[in-house]
Structures are given as C-alpha cells and as structure tokens.
C-alpha cells in the first residue's frame, strides 16, 4: 500500500509484527514437534551408548549365561529373558481371553448404553490404579490366597512340570496373574475399538438370517475384527514385556528359570528395578546391556502392533 490510509478502513495488510511473529511461531512449533522425535532418538542412543561397552565385552554369552555376580564380574540374562517370555505368555493367554470377552460385552449389546459406559469406566479404573499398588495387593492378598491351592496341586499333581514346586512366597503364578490384570485394560480397549469398527450392517444381515447373538459373534464379528484383535494382543504383549513394578515385587528376583508356576523367577524389567539403585560401575554397564535388550524387544513388538492396527482399520474400509 503506497499511500496513507484512514484508520476507518476495514481491510488492511498484515503489520510487520504479525508477519514476523507468525513465521517465528511456525518455526517454534516445528522445532517442538521434531523435538519429540529427537527425544525418542536420544533415549535409544543414550541407552545403546552405555550398553555398547558391555555388549563388546560379554557379547552373545550374555544371553546364555545364568550367573549374575557383580563381585566376579559375571553377568548373564538367560533366566530373565526366559522369565519375561514365560510370565508374558501366561498373562497374554489369560488376559487375551478375558480382555476379548470384556470387549464383546462392551460392544455387542449385552448391556444398555448406560451400562456399557459404566463398565467401560470401570475397566479404565483398572488401568488407573498404579502398578506398585497391584504389587502390594499381590504380596498381601494374592500370594496368601494362592499358597494353599498351590500346595494342594503340588501334593496331588507334583509330577506335572507346571506344579513341581511349592509356592513359598513370590513366584511365577502370582506375577503372571497380576500381569494379566495390568494388560487387561489395553487388550479390552483396543479390541473393543476393532469390534466397533466392524460395519453394523454385517451383524444386521446375520441377525436378519436368524442367527443368535453368539453365532453372530463367532461367525461374523470375531473373524471380521480378527486383525484388530490380533493387534490388540500384540500391543498387550508389548505392555507385558515392559511391566516392571508388579513383577519386581512378585516374581521373586531369583536368578533361575523353572517351568514350575510356583517357583520364583525374574524378568528383564524386574532385574533393572531390583539391581539399578545399588549397582556399581561394572554392574551398571551390564544392566545397560539388559536395558538395551528390553528396549529393542519392546520397540519391535510395539511398532509391529501399531502397524497391524493401521492395516486392520485400512482393511475394513472396503466393507463400508
């Protein structure tokens, strides 16, 4: 604008301050957006940098060794890797079964709209309780509850590998049960979403042909939503691998692995929680190696789960 304008004119070009602050703001939000990626990169880099030394030192023997002795500078995480997989397996088996059942009840018209909302909030409440509180509950409620049952099973079925020891306190079974509770909300929420994404007219068509509710569920809903439910299980598995406190308190912190449900064990995350606070220099480096292993496993599982979810929702688009 070349000539001076009276102030009454409505339209005006942006002032210099407006233009410059706008550009500055644009740059600031881009930097902060990128900072989230940098943060993730920094976490991976920092853990791997500290793990590097002990990776070269202990190499792959780290995975097969069963000794964890800071005084002799001997470290191995075989019991932890096996224990993480074993407890997560039981948690996923139970949590998957219960979680999908809950998701069905929340999405297939078993309850009124109001009832579904209340139930959904209750499941979210389950996720809101801190894991350390579940750990405390496990120690004082679950373990005393399980001990006589475990004793009976060991007396009568002791030859069976799963029941080959007695439950003296912490152990694989209470740890897996609490882990089940911890992954239940994730599995429920994600599979509920997968079930809700199935176009209603598929179910309506089946009902119209005379199918009962469970026939619709087993032959229409679950097969159609199977990719999404599988994604929910993978995400639940990712949570189970990384869950720390409940396992640090209930798994028993034992440097052994046993198939028995009642014997103490350990997991990668619990190892970190139990040893980090008092570790010396060598042990810290070995723990960083273990943390790196945990990081790689959980990131892989989570990225896999997210990709499956993305493809699952994309796959349903054609049915709409």
């Amino acid at each position, binding site marked *: 604008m070349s000539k001076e304008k009276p102030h009454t004119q409505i339209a005006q070009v942006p002032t210099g301050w407006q233009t410059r602050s706008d550009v500055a703001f644009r740059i600031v939000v881009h930097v902060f957006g990128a900072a989230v990626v940098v943060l993730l990169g920094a976490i991976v880099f920092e853990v791997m940098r500290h793990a590097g030394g002990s990776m070269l030192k202990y190499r792959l023997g780290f995975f097969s060794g069963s000794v964890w002795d800071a005084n002799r500078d001997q470290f191995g995480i075989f019991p932890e890797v096996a224990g993480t997989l074993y407890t997560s397996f039981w948690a996923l088996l139970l949590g998957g079964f219960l979680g999908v059942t809950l998701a069905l009840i929340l999405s297939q018209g078993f309850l009124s709209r109001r009832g579904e909302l209340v139930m959904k909030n209750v499941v979210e409440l389950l996720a*809101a309780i801190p894991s350390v509180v579940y750990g405390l509950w496990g120690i004082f409620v679950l373990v005393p509850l399980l001990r006589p049952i475990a004793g009976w099973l060991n007396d009568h079925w002791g030859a069976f590998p799963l029941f080959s020891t007695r439950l003296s306190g912490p152990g694989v079974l209470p740890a897996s049960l609490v882990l089940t509770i911890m992954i239940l909300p994730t599995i429920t929420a994600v599979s509920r979403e997968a079930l809700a994404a199935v176009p209603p007219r598929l179910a309506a068509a089946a009902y119209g042909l005379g199918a009962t509710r469970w026939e619709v569920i087993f032959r229409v809903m679950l097969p159609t939503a199977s990719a999404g439910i599988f994604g929910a299980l993978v995400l639940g598995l990712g949570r189970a691998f990384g869950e720390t406190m409940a396992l640090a308190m209930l798994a028993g912190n034992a440097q052994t692995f046993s198939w028995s449900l009642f014997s103490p064990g350990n997991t990668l995350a619990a190892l970190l929680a139990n040893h980090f606070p008092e570790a010396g220099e060598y042990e810290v480096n070995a723990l960083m190696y273990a943390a790196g292993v945990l990081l790689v496993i959980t990131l892989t599982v989570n990225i896999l789960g997210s990709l499956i979810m993305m493809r699952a929702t994309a796959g349903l688009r054609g049915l709409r």
Partner: protein
Amino acid sequence: MADATTESPDGSPELRFSFANRRTLVDRSLTVLAIGLAAFALFPLFSVLYMLIVRGGHLLSPSLLTELTPGAGMEGGGIGNAALGTLIVVVVASLFSLPLGILAAIYLAEYAGESQLGTIVRFAGKVLTGMPSILAGVFAYAAIVVTTKSFSAFAGGVAMAILMVPTIMLTGEQALRAVPEKMRLAALGMGASRMETTLRVVLPTALPGILTGVMLALARAMGETAPLLFTALFSDYWFDGKLGAPIASLSVLIYNFSGSPFAHLSELAWAASLVLVALVLVLNVAAQVIIRRPKEF
C-alpha cells in the same frame, strides 16, 4: 439351520422362545459364561479398593501427611515427605512436558497436515506411549545421574516428563482437531495471522480437551514407580529446596515398605497407597468432568 429349530405340530418352525432349542441354550449359556468371566476379571479391582480402605483407612489422620517416614522398627510417623516429594517431582515433570507436549500437539494439528514429518512425529509419540516406563528411568539415569554423579529430584522429573509428553501430545492433537474449521476460517477472514488464530481462537476452544490429556498424564505419572527408583531414589527427610538431591515419593515408599518385615511399615505402605490412589482417581474424574462439559459451536 432348520435342523436346529424345533417344529410345531403343523410343520412350521416354532418361533416361541424355548430352552429346548439347542441354539437358544448354547446362546444363553455363553452369555452367562461371558458375564461371569467379566465379573471375575473385575474382581481384583474391587478387592484392591476394599483392601485400601480396610488396611490403609485406619491410619488416615492429619499427622499422616505432616510427619516424616519412621525408621525401621519405629512406631508413629507419617508419609508427609513422600507426599510432598511426589508433588515436587510432578511439578518438575510438568515444567518440561507441558510446553513440549502442547506445542508438539499444535504442530501436529495445525501445521503438520499430511506431511512426512507429521507422520513421523505422531508415530514417535505412539512408540513413546508403549515404551516401558523403566526405560525412561534408565535414560534419565544415563543422561543425568551419571553426568551429575548424584541421584536427584531433577532426574526423576525428567524421567517422568518423558512419560507425560506422548499422552499430552496425542490427546491435545485430538482436542485441537475437534475445533470446527469454520472458526479458523472466520478468524483468518478477519485478518488474523495463523499464529493469532491458533493462540486466540483454536487453543482457548480446545482447552478443555487439552486439560483432560494433561490430567490423565499427571495421573499416570503420579503412580509411576519404575522411573523414580534409580533417579529420584528416596529420602527420609523433608525436601530442602535442592532439586539436585534425592527426594522421597509415595510410589517408591510403597515399594520400599512393601517388603519390610516390620508390620507398621507395611501398614504405612497401605496408607500411602490409599492416598496415591485417591489422588489418581481425583485427577481421572476431573479429566472426565472437564471433557463432558457441554460445548456450543
């Protein structure tokens, strides 16, 4: 399916409800089984709440929140330093995570569009959501505790901030995207710049949704133990104004006292759990109330 339907004397399928029909029987039994399993799955929640009230409730008193943690074998005392410590760590964490999370959310909702960087940022946020919380602690340990050679409240705050950022960012993005496009267009049409539109129209409108995300992040952070275990550590004394020193927290107190052979300490662990769960639930309910407030566009 005709074989499964009972037939009436005149040969037409019987449409009246009857458990004699195998399909009806299977259907109803599965429903009962599913509801039973759901009740079984939710039993731990009610058991936890019951135990918190029974074992933690009787210690509730003003002195619980004003006195220091007792030493092993001692009677009395409270959890005052731990409750204060949790609040301080959460404040430190918020100082980092609020600006980062909200500005990143603004980037995702207002500037990223379908760009490649936007997709990467969103994916990084999802990956951070699923990252085990103990790894945030390992990162803060490696980056801060090792460098400063001291466990500190500051390191604990940083570890906790990492857990809050993705929640704040992803829920913030949803809230900002829910603001109708016509409000942006109206502001731009009035001659506002994009920054002015974002800060003075979009952000205030989306504030309830963003606050919900912040509350949920705070609730989650408050209950986290693993990232504090070897960053903030624990302290038996009051916070003395130094962020560079170890600090107590409710969650670490529960962990430390849970394994204690002294009955009084485990009672205090239950009391601390009750206080912690109450704080977390209040934040969760507040988040729900904010988001339910009726909006008019």
